[in-house]
């Protein structure tokens, strides 16, 4: 296949991303930035209690504010057909039936939206809405509530727990991770515009326009095509845009009520309760090995928080079944309902959390066994087949990731015993861990429109949340058609374009790349079909036989037989040549298991007086199959590592159990890694295509970039100091007190 011939041929280092100029000039339009005539502004009012119900809402003062058009509450909202009764609310699976209940489930729950002429008017008026409540007892303390939900089996037990009950080399420990918040830099925003009674246009921040479109078509009982969702530029997601959230519906209802387009941008504090977060979690690991280091058994228990109005389970113990071959395995889990908003998938959901516990325990076991942690892992990897499904891996190069990473960071410099290297007040150490992720793929469609000047427009509904989807589309289309990248325009993030799955779970590129290959080939075939009318040689030509240039198509062999596009267009009276194609997973999914993987290595220094951790070096090597765009892929990997640094050292959504709500819910209170918190991340790839996953051989990288980072850093801290930290984030106080 063309793609596999020269693996490093496709890179856009020279010209950058397809949307680069729009992003560096500020011209790219994010959801809240479209000019919509007659637009007015919404501001949400959140509940000030954590549990109970609304007794009364007084909007008198709010309505006195000049410029206020209306205030929507559960008492005067336009009815949503999909929320007509309790049964329908349940069936809608929307989560919070915003403005359709007087019940309060968490502090900050949207209970009103003020609509006004200006943002200032709306914001001020929202502060004047007065609510009286009937309060009820709330539960927000995860640790306290843990006992309320007993553990139950998460997946099938393998072997037995008794088989390794007398194991000599054993590690048993508990791990806690604070709730983390996605906090993409663009706050979620929506402009809702009812074009007519049953036609809706939404400019919205999300990670899947078709999902948003379907959700509201169902809720309002209108045809899907009547809803257009536009999300051309998305200022980051990390999972927060995979669900459709209450504030979007609130904006749509407000627009219906005032009969004007309404714009709502969440405030940063609202971002902490409105669009999900990684749940707080507890884990227990029991891991044993024989004297040679072969794993004998693993018990993995996990609990994480959810809300009282929805069950969200991210599957923390899934990773226990993915990486290593372990004969005796038991996984148990449960979710703990709290009076907080519903958590959701956040980068590397479940696996990222579970991986921290398992990879920390393996490191701990390596010291018990007096074996190198790299060697210990190598010995136990399940390289041939998925330990869970039993199907052979299509490709799994996690061992090569480990080898390459170890060489790059000079793992041989690491001391086998902790606390051996000091520079003044600083203790220096090395750590490593691996990450893995099931490599999925969905059905995706794409279209190409070709003009007679040889220029192409490649289209899909899929969003580009910063991963470089558009650039990858351009690269692939250029590679297959032969048309230069300069002549290929990309259109995406609009529900009127050919449908595509949401961009999540590292499936974006894997899904869309197949569609781009298919549609590019369809274009060549269609041109050949038209050409065959003018020249017999094109009859029965395959896409491999055709070469496209800037102005002509020609035949690869058999002389040249060039035909100008202008001539084709004239002969067939064409305006635009349009082709569409779809592609998705097939029977290969029954034959193989698929995974992306990564190995993370770091060198840290820990200050013995202040407890500060500085990461000197971080090396991440990933198996992402064929790397379509090396620069964007490396960027995504290093970005994920920086997310991992935040998760390990600083990110923590604090909950105040007295008031039943969040504290520090802004960037002064919630820290993630700034530029100075991270070294220049060193990234490398295995560069081996997966021949079965999709036509390009590329596997997603978004998740594996972060899975494993936390354990790598914590393990390095142990190597530096001899202190084993099992609670994230590892803040200086925890190090000093350990």
């Amino acid at each position, binding site marked *: 296949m063309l793609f596999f011939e020269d693996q490093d041929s496709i890179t856009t*280092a*020279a010209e*950058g*991303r397809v*949307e680069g*100029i*729009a*992003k*560096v*000039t*500020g*011209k790219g339009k*994010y959801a*809240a930035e479209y*000019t919509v005539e007659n637009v007015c502004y919404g501001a949400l009012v959140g509940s000030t209690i954590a549990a109970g119900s609304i007794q009364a809402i007084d909007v008198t*003062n709010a309505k*006195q504010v*000049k*410029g206020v058009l209306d205030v929507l509450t559960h008492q005067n909202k336009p009815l949503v057909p999909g929320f007509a009764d309790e049964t329908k609310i349940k069936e809608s699976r929307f989560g919070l039936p915003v403005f359709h209940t007087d019940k309060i489930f968490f502090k900050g729950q949207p209970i009103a939206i003020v609509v006004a002429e*200006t*943002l*200032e*008017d709306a914001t*001020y008026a929202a502060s004047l809405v007065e609510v009286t409540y009937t309060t009820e007892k709330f539960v927000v303390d995860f640790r306290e509530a843990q006992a309320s939900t007993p553990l139950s089996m998460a997946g099938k037990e393998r072997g037995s727990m008794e088989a390794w009950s007398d194991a000599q080399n054993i590690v048993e420990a508990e791990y806690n991770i604070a709730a983390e918040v996605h*906090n*993409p*830099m*663009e*706050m979620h925003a929506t402009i809702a515009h009812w074009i007519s009674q049953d036609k809706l246009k939404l400019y919205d921040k999300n990670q899947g326009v078709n999902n948003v479109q379907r959700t509201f078509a169902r809720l309002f009982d209108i045809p899907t095509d009547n809803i257009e969702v536009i999300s051309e*530029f*998305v*200022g*980051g*997601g990390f999972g927060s845009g995979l669900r459709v959230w209450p504030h979007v519906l609130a904006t749509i209802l407000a627009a219906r009520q005032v009969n004007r387009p309404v714009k709502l941008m969440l405030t*940063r504090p609202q971002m902490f309760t409105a669009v999900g977060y990684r749940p707080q979690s507890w884990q227990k690991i029991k891991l044993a090995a024989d004297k040679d280091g072969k794993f004998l058994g693993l018990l993995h228990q996990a609990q994480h928080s959810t809300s009282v109005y929805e069950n969200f389970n991210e599957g923390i113990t899934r990773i226990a079944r993915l990486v290593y071959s372990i004969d005796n395995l038991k996984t148990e889990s449960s979710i703990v309902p709290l009076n907080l908003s519903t958590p959701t998938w956040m980068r590397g959901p479940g696996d990222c959390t579970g991986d921290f516990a398992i990879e920390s325990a393996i490191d701990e076991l390596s010291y018990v066994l007096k074996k190198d942690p790299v060697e210990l892992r190598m010995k136990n990897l399940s390289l041939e087949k998925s330990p869970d499904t039993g199907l052979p891996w299509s490709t799994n190069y996690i061992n090569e990731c480990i080898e390459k990473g170890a060489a790059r960071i000079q793992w041989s410099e690491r001391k086998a015993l902790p606390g051996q290297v000091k520079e003044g007040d600083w203790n220096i150490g090395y750590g490593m861990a691996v990450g893995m992720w099931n490599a999925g793929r969905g059905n995706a469609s794409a279209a190409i429109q070709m003009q007679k000047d040889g220029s192409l427009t490649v289209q899909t509904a899929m969003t580009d949340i*910063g*991963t*470089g989807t558009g650039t990858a589309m351009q690269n692939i289309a250029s590679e297959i058609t032969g048309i230069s990248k300069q002549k290929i325009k990309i259109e995406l993030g609009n529900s009127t374009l050919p449908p595509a799955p949401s961009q999540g779970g590292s499936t974006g590129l894997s899904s869309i790349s197949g569609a781009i290959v298919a549609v590019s080939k369809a274009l060549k075939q269609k041109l050949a079909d038209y050409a065959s009318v003018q020249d017999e040689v094109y009859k029965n030509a395959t896409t491999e036989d055709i070469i496209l240039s800037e102005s002509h198509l020609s035949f690869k062999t058999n002389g040249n037989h060039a035909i100008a596009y202008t001539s084709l267009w004239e002969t067939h009276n064409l305006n635009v040549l349009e082709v569409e194609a779809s592609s998705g997973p097939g029977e290969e999914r029954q034959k193989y298991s698929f995974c992306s993987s990564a190995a993370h290595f770091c060198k840290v220094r820990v200050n013995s007086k202040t407890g500060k951790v500085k990461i000197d070096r971080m090396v991440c090597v990933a198996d992402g199959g064929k790397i379509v765009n090396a*620069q964007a892929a*490396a*960027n*995504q990997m*290093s*970005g*994920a*590592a*920086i*997310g991992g640094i935040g998760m390990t050292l600083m990110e923590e959504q604090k909950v105040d159990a007295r008031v039943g709500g969040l504290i520090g819910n*802004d*960037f*002064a209170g919630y820290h*993630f*890694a*700034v*530029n*100075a*918190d*991270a070294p*220049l*991340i060193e990234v490398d790839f295995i560069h081996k295509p997966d021949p079965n996953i999709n036509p390009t051989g590329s596997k997603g990288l978004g998740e594996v970039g972060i899975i494993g980072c936390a354990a790598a850093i914590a393990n390095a801290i142990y190597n530096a100091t001899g202190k084993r930290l099992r609670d994230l984030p590892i803040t200086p106080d925890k190090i000093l007190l350990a």
Partner: protein
Amino acid sequence: MKTEHLYSRRFFLKTAAAFTALAALPSTVKAFYQEVKNFIVPAKQTLPLVVTINKKEYQLSADTRTTLLDLLRENLQLTGTKKGCDHGQCGACTVHVDGERVLSCLTLAAMLPGKKVTTIEGLAVGDKLHPMQQAFIECDGFQCGYCTPGQIMSAVACVKEGHTRSVAEIKEFMSGNLCRCGAYNGIVESIQKVAR
């Protein structure tokens, strides 16, 4: 311009008078109610404003509460300047005021007369990108692009300030601009490229 302090001695006297009157004279409730209401819900104030943004002079009438950030985004459709927190905690709204980097979310529009504002839209000259914009494209100094205008405005200032002697120094002086995608590698490289 006429200014009135809301919480003056007169405020209390007037409010007290109004309440006394309400209690004593039910027939005049309506007239006094309006008086009282104006203190509970202060009326919006606007002021005329002449500002220079990207070398263009604007004659505006702005709400006194309006920040430079909202003025740019909501009133002038200069949406290149981004809102990431509205609290001076993220740097996404960084612009230049008289050549210095400034957080537009912490700057009231009313503070602008006599000052020259440059936003990301004013950085390129015609179709020719500023070297920092070019460097960000070449070094892939972004992913989602939302913090990018603020990063670029800060980066230009960082070079001008001379804080580019080492990777560590660049990182320190660019740490007021958060990037959740974590494109810090490319941001540092872009600055190094321009500073050379």
